[in-house]
């Protein structure tokens, strides 16, 4: 069976939200499972090559806690995120708080929409304040300086 790869789009729905959308060639039940079971999460939620996920705790119920931790195998870098689930609707919708480093918390909503056996997963991160969003932006921008002008059209098209 061949693997179909769809593009990831990042949009800015409002001035304190960041949304990301991606379609997967699988039913919502499987995407949900891969997104909520630690043994499966550890196999894909790794970002760029080389990272491992030594911490992956999921207590999947309203009020339950989650914690993810990533590290490089040589121990030179590591970071953690954690939060609490506030809505758990299997195969459809997951809402949780998210704490990352010293940033004030964000609220993340993940929606799973299945059409013809394919599932579009949309993750919307709402920052609780302007200061929070700016802190998150500052975190993500560290190694991105000086990107070329050509990307501008791409970004505008995706907004």
């Amino acid at each position: 069976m061949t693997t179909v790869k769809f593009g990831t789009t990042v949009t800015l729905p409002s001035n304190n939200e960041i949304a990301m959308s991606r379609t997967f060639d699988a039913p919502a039940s499987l995407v949900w499972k891969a997104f909520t079971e630690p043994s499966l999460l550890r196999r894909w939620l790794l970002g760029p090559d080389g990272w491992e996920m030594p911490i992956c705790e999921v207590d999947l119920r309203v009020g339950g806690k989650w914690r993810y931790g990533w590290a490089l195998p040589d121990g030179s870098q590591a970071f953690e995120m954690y939060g609490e689930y506030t809505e758990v609707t299997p195969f459809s919708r997951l809402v949780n708080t998210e704490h990352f480093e010293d940033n004030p918390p964000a609220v993340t909503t993940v929606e799973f929409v299945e059409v013809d056996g394919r599932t579009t997963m949309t993750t919307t991160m709402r920052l609780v304040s302007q200061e929070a969003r700016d802190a998150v932006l500052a975190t993500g921008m560290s190694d991105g300086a000086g990107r070329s002008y050509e990307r501008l059209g791409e970004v505008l098209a995706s907004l």
Partner: protein
Amino acid sequence: MDQLSATFAALADPTRRAILARLTEGPATVKELSEPFDMSGPAISKHLRVLEKAGLITRGREAQWRPCQLDATPLREVSAWAENYRRFWDASYTRLDALLTEMKENEQ
């Protein structure tokens, strides 16, 4: 408001994004910018003031025409941020594609 907040606030409005998209093709006057929209000149001028304050556009000095021109500097910061974010998730999602293919095969 700091620079990035001003940029994001300016970008949150679809009319302003459309104006910026038009300006990637080259400078334009207020009249030219208002044509594609069902909006009055003053309404467009209000959007232009927000964009100017955010440093996203500069305006010519000729009093009558004052052509608007894109300044991409603040957008580059947003672009770099969005690109980093997208890259982390894109790499993860590519792995998830493969995992889901495997899960589907196991189910059959």
